[in-house]
């Protein structure tokens, strides 16, 4: 069966026949870059459309249904509109930082793509500290938001950025602790090793209640980290107009918008990798016949299926829950999520030491 790893191996061997190793490396890097940018564009279009459709159905509406068959081309049309709009820079803004901030947001999103295993043996960078890399890079996101808020020279933008700073810094803790639960159980920071450790069952099934608790905390924390409702205080349309991207227009705004959706995809991909086994098919213990049937479904389908399930979960939250106030938000983190995840990590450690998981 044709898989992503076969295609990449074929391209690699074909390039090696024509060029010397250095040029092969350069060309492969360029191909990877183009693929990532292409994936960004496709994801942006698909996720925006998906969000609008999910929102509409949850609110008993129809959603976009005019442009193209069943409204499929709506997000494409929106993108074209944003591309032809003027990207204004306000007079009082810090010009350099103002224009630089959207690119940092995109760069962070791009860097986060590196450790994700999209399919079996198909990964941009198989590094041995994948989880640490993810938590480290994802906290750079706050810099782009603070930069955008500060450079806009607008009180609403600055307030949005400051809130976002407080929010991301505090939710980083519980996100990190819930990721740590899986690291403790699998004994590795390498995302590939973590996936392989789930060959006989995903951690969410093998790890009993503690892992389910850390999964819930992870989902809540990453929703907050990606600044999505019910934690979208950084934007807060009703109070701060649009928060940190009030002053942005045209493609610079679109980059922030795109970065938000790419980040949602990435955190869901990491969540799927850690808790739901990444590209690992659904296996039950020693039922060999069942496991073989599951193996026939390609690994990329498993990965994208799980990721989109988590994305749907986050969208579902967005259109169900009302936005929290800033004090409620920080209360939730410091009074509930952090103590619970600290207690939980002790429980998981105990479980890992005594071998209580399957």
């Amino acid at each position, binding site marked *: 069966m044709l898989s992503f790893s076969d295609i990449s191996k074929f391209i690699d061997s074909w390039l090696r026949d024509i060029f010397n190793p250095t040029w092969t490396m350069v060309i492969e890097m360029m191909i990877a870059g183009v693929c990532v940018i292409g994936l960004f564009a496709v994801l942006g279009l698909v996720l925006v459309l998906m969000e609008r459709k999910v929102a509409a*159905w*949850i609110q008993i*509406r129809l959603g976009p249904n005019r442009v193209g068959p069943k409204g499929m081309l709506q997000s494409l049309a929106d993108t074209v509109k944003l591309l032809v709009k003027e990207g204004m820079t306000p007079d009082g803004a810090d010009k350099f930082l103002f224009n630089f901030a959207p690119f940092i947001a995109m760069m962070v999103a791009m860097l986060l793509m590196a450790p994700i295993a999209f399919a079996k043996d198909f990964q941009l960078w198989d590094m041995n500290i994948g989880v640490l890399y993810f938590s480290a890079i994802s906290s750079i996101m706050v810099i782009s938001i603070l930069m955008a808020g500060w450079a806009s020279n607008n009180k609403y933008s600055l307030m949005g950025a400051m809130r976002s700073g407080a929010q991301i810094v505090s939710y980083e803790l519980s996100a990190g602790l819930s990721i740590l639960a899986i690291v403790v159980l699998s004994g590795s920071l390498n995302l590939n090793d973590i996936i392989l450790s789930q060959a006989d069952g995903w951690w969410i099934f093998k790890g009993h209640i503690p892992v389910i608790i850390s999964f819930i905390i992870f989902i809540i924390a990453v929703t907050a980290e990606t600044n999505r409702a019910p934690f979208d205080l950084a934007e807060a349309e009703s109070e701060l107009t649009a928060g940190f991207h009030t002053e942005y227009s045209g493609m610079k705004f679109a980059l922030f918008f795109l970065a938000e959706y790419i980040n949602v995809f990435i955190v869901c991909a990491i969540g799927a990798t850690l808790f739901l086994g990444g590209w690992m098919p659904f296996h039950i213990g020693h039922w060999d016949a069942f496991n073989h049937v599951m193996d026939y479904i390609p690994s990329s389908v498993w990965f994208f299926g799980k990721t989109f399930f988590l994305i749907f979960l986050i969208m579902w939250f967005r259109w169900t829950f009302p936005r929290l106030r800033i004090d409620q938000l920080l209360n939730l983190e410091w009074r509930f999520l952090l103590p619970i995840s600290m207690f939980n990590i002790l429980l998981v450690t105990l479980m890992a030491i005594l071998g209580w998981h399957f």
Partner: protein
Amino acid sequence: MFIIKYIKEVFSGLKSLAVGLRRTLYYFTHHKEIITEQYPDNRETLKLSDRFKGEVVMLHDENNEHACTGCTACELACPNATIKIITQFDITPEGKKKKALDKFVYHLELCTMCNLCIVACPTDAIKMAQTFEHSVYDRSELTKILNKPGSHIRAGVE
């Protein structure tokens, strides 16, 4: 014990979130409940709710007769001077003078569809219609005369 209160708080919070999620999942999976009307496409089959109020109309029967006595109860009931009743005096067969309706002037541009005139009318001469495509090119077209030309009050309506 504060720890029991804390745990209770967590669980009641999670439960209320689950209730909300269940409701939205129900709507997400039940597309038949969608209430959006595809308006310009389904103009012929459009069904409006019974309570929808579009404009005030006067009922006329096949003999071009209406039930308005010109009592001006609707004009008095109207909170923003939408209705203006112009009366005249008819001569009855007995030779007496009788007050009757000449023109029922209705300013659609002022009307808030509050339904008070319909409630005030003692003879049910007017009612709310369900039309809603009221856009016109000149605002004077919105001032309407509701009684049809040549119409009379129905016999027996006092």
